[in-house]
């Protein structure tokens, strides 16, 4: 242990510290500290002026006591006095004290700033450095205001020493990070960039840190640094082993400087100048070549330093994404690392390959390593490495290997860490949907997902599978069968019950023929899970039950019994009780036609953007989901529902609605006269679901003049049948909106809003023919008293002939 009992060594401090250490208890320690504090206080207040050494000793003791955890409320003045001393040791303690115990006393701050200013303008490099470090450590806004203009001058002045230049660069960087608006580079920019050419490597390193940060905010101003950086880099990389003596680390020349240069180049696009670009490519090739050469030293530090430069170079190559042969070489190099002995290298290789996989040039090359990656997923002992392998599999997935990759990810999911399961689930769901050629495979995958990691299957995932099953006719039977089988498992996850309940409710009739899955069997199966489920699931099951009554009249009695029992109609949960009561009534009152209409099969969902993708992006931040994902989903979106002729706009959807047996699935029937001239939704071919935030926007865009049709179809009240005017009129007793009149040519709908004593009514006239009306006029006549109450009548002729009143 180095001795501290020399003249400068503050023996008093050493004694104090050993006293504290020898204290047996907390109380003894506090007593000792208080004694010392009292001593110091008296010394500071005393008449006798303290000499520098004593002052330094006491201030240091105060600092020590502060670091032990006690508050210090005096001594700042003495510390500031120390600043103006000429002795290095005293000055140093002074600076140390004020950087740790930042004081907001403005008088003191003024004195401190003065002292710093004096030190900065002194010619003594030691003092200048002390001052710069204090500014950097404190980095407060007041300091930035005071010194931000002076430091660049010091930085670029010709007569500043190298070590001071380094400190100045880093100090400026710190000030820029805390108060970017106060650091105005303006006139200093070119000279700061020129520092990259400095002789001293330390200055270059410090300047690079500064320039990298500045150029991220103002790339254009610092554009000239690119060529300088490239020339510096090539000089380092091609230097012989005898150059750069001081900066060679285990036979690698200036590794950290090289890494920083490569990092700086990643802030800019590839250089346009041919010569510069050529030099850079040559550099990168040299680095890649060196990786292949036999190592100059057996030590692990040598290979680590070399590989650090290599990985940074590969990041740069990936960032540029323009040199195919470099990309392929990088990919091969990483492929070699995938099977390296050292875990660190395997981890880094997997991480870099992930970004490589999204580049078009190297995507194929990456895919060749799929077996190695799958093996890594299974056999790696470090969970972070396994996680990287899973990420890479996700990135390299495409049509050719989708099934294999999804299968591997599912088996990994069974043993995966709990913290990463949710993300894995989302990824598997996205992959399964994107690359599903055969939708029964998709249904299988999602159901497996629910079985394996049910807790982590978020709502978006199972909403999605239901949407897809509903939208695709061919997979409905298969889905019903699979779900039925899955539900028979003794321990079934609740999400499975939700999906199963919904699908059997919609499509249970498709498997009802088989005696093993007869209606009653289905019902009993669902009901056996009923009591184990949470409230939302039970609500869903109740809806499934009423659908069963519609599909299978023979089960009506059984189900009504269930609905009638006390635990349903007197259930403490309002939603469940309401549903039970209403469904019971509905099943007893409604005729079979009405019931069939009300509980008609769910219409296909409109196309919109996948919310699963959005959720994954939100979870991992913007970088995680690559651009190709989104583009692919746009392309695939058309394909998913492309099987049928249904286009993305709800106009067409409405048309297909009109073609289904029941004529008025929608409220007004205006939508069945689809060519109203209303602009159809140009939702594009993006795949979307009804549950994302943009929900109401899509259908309303299609029929935007009919504002009140903006709510999504499933939540509308059941439609009324075309019938006589009286019946149509009567319903306005309890409804504000509806069809007022309808005949072969015309349909009149009404929408009204009432608030306290004011009311507003809109009349909509729909043309049911395929010819345009000519000279269409309307009049409103209000009998008697009503006339005086009308505030205004307005006629608007819009393309769809709607009229607000």
């Amino acid at each position, binding site marked *: 242990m180095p001795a501290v009992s020399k003249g400068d060594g503050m023996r008093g401090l050493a004694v104090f510290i050993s006293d504290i250490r020898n204290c047996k208890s907390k109380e003894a320690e506090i007593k000792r500290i208080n004694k010392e504090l009292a001593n110091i206080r008296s010394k500071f207040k005393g008449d006798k002026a303290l000499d520098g050494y004593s002052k330094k000793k006491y201030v240091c003791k105060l600092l020590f006591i502060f*670091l*032990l955890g006690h508050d210090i409320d005096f001594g700042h003045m003495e510390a500031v006095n120390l600043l103006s001393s000429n002795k290095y040791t005293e000055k140093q303690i002074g600076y140390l004290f004020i950087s740790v115990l930042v004081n907001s006393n403005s008088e003191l701050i003024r004195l401190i700033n003065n002292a710093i200013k004096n030190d900065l303008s002194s010619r003594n490099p030691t003092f200048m450095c002390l001052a710069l470090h204090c500014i950097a450590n404190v980095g407060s806004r007041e300091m930035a205001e005071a010194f931000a203009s002076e430091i660049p001058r010091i930085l670029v002045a010709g007569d500043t020493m190298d070590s001071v230049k380094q400190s100045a660069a880093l100090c400026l960087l710190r000030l820029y990070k805390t108060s970017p608006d106060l650091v105005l580079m303006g006139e200093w920019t070119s000279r700061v960039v020129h520092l990259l050419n400095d002789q001293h490597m330390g200055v270059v390193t410090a300047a690079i840190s500064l320039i990298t940060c500045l150029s991220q905010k103002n790339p254009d101003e610092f554009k000239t640094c690119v060529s300088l950086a490239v020339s510096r880099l090539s000089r380092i990389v091609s230097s012989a082993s005898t150059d750069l003596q001081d900066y060679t680390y285990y036979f690698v020349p200036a590794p950290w400087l090289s890494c920083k240069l490569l990092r700086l180049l990643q802030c800019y696009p590839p250089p346009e100048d041919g010569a510069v670009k050529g030099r850079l490519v040559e550099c990168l090739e040299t680095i890649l070549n060196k990786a292949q050469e036999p190592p100059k030293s057996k030590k692990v530090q040598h290979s*680590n330093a070399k590989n650090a*430069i290599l990985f940074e170079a590969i990041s740069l190559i990936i960032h540029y994404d323009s040199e195919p042969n470099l990309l392929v070489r990088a990919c091969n190099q990483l492929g070699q690392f995938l099977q390296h002995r050292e875990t660190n290298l395997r981890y880094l290789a997997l991480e870099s390959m992930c970004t490589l996989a999204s580049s078009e040039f190297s995507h194929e090359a990456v895919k060749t390593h799929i077996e190695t990656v799958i093996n890594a997923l299974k056999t790696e002992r470090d969970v972070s490495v396994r996680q990287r392998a899973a990420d890479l599999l996700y990135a390299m997935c495409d049509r050719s290997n989708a099934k294999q990759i999804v299968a591997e990810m599912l088996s990994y999911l069974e043993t995966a860490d709990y913290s990463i399961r949710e993300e894995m689930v989302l990824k598997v769901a996205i992959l399964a949907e994107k690359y599903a050629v055969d939708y029964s495979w998709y249904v299988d995958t999602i159901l497996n997902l629910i079985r394996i990691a049910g807790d982590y299957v978020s709502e978006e995932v199972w909403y999605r599978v239901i949407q897809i099953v509903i939208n695709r006719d061919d997979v409905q039977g298969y889905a019903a069968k699979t779900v039925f089988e899955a539900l028979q498992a003794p321990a079934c996850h609740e999400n499975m019950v939700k999906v199963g309940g919904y699908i059997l409710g919609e499509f249970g009739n498709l498997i009802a023929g088989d005696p093993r899955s007869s209606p009653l069997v289905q019902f009993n199966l669902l009901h056996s899970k009923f009591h184990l489920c949470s409230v939302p699931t039970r609500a869903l099951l109740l809806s499934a039950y009423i659908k069963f009554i519609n599909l299978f009249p023979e089960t009506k009695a059984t189900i009504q019994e269930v609905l009638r029992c006390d635990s349903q109609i007197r259930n403490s949960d309002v939603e469940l009780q309401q549903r039970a009561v209403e469904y019971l009534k509905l099943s007893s009152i409604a005729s079979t036609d009405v019931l069939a209409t009300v509980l008609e099969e769910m219409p296909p969902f409109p196309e919109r953007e996948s919310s699963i993708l959005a959720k994954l992006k939100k979870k991992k931040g913007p970088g995680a989901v690559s651009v190709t994902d989104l583009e692919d989903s746009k392309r695939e979106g058309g394909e998913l529902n492309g099987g049928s002729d249904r286009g993305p706009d709800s106009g067409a959807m409405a048309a297909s609605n009109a073609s289904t047996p029941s004529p008025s699935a929608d409220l007004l029937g205006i939508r069945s006269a689809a060519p109203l001239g209303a602009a159809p939704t140009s939702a594009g071919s993006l795949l979307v679901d009804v549950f994302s935030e943009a929900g109401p926007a899509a259908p309303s865009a299609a029929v935007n003049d009919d504002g009140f049709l903006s709510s999504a179809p499933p939540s509308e009240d059941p439609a009324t049948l075309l019938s006589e005017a009286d019946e149509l009129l009567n319903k306005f007793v309890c409804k504000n909106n509806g069809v007022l009149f309808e005949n072969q040519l015309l349909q009149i709908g009404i929408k009204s809003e009432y608030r306290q004593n004011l009311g507003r009514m809109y009349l909509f006239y729909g043309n049911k023919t395929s010819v345009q009306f000519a000279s269409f006029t309307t009049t409103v006549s209000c009998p008697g008293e009503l006339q005086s109450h009308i505030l205004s009548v307005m006629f608007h002729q819009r393309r769809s002939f709607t009229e607000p009143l």
Partner: protein
Amino acid sequence: MIKFVLMVNRQGQTRLSRYYDPVELNRRTLLENHVVHCCLSRRKDQCSFVDYKDFKLVYRQYAALYIVVGVTDNENELSVYELVHNFVEVLDKYFSRVSELDVSFNLTNHSRPELDFLSLAPLPVCQHHFLSFSTTSCLSAPLPVFSTTSCLFL
């Protein structure tokens, strides 16, 4: 960007800590405990880079001492890994065969103005330790790489 540097021993005591991103004093102990727990529980065959919250930890073990560096995601992990080793080599050269005690017990050292080192002794109730080092003048030949080291800490 380097967020913090910690030197912790196997018992979980912080010998040295330096924060480059402001963290309140009372949250520091919690952070340190958590980070140390992460690193101490890892085995030899696991890699030295750990994902922790929204940044990464790079750690390296030297006998009973763990040096942990918290870095942002965009940092080159291997270069930080080697930086740690470089730092330890410098300490080694300076203290001639450095040990944990040297780091713990070194006080203000005035005989070597080139190397400004202040760290205070650890005591059971000590909150945190303090390392600030600066190169004040050109270093003599044996420790040239150190000047780059100090620059890399920002």
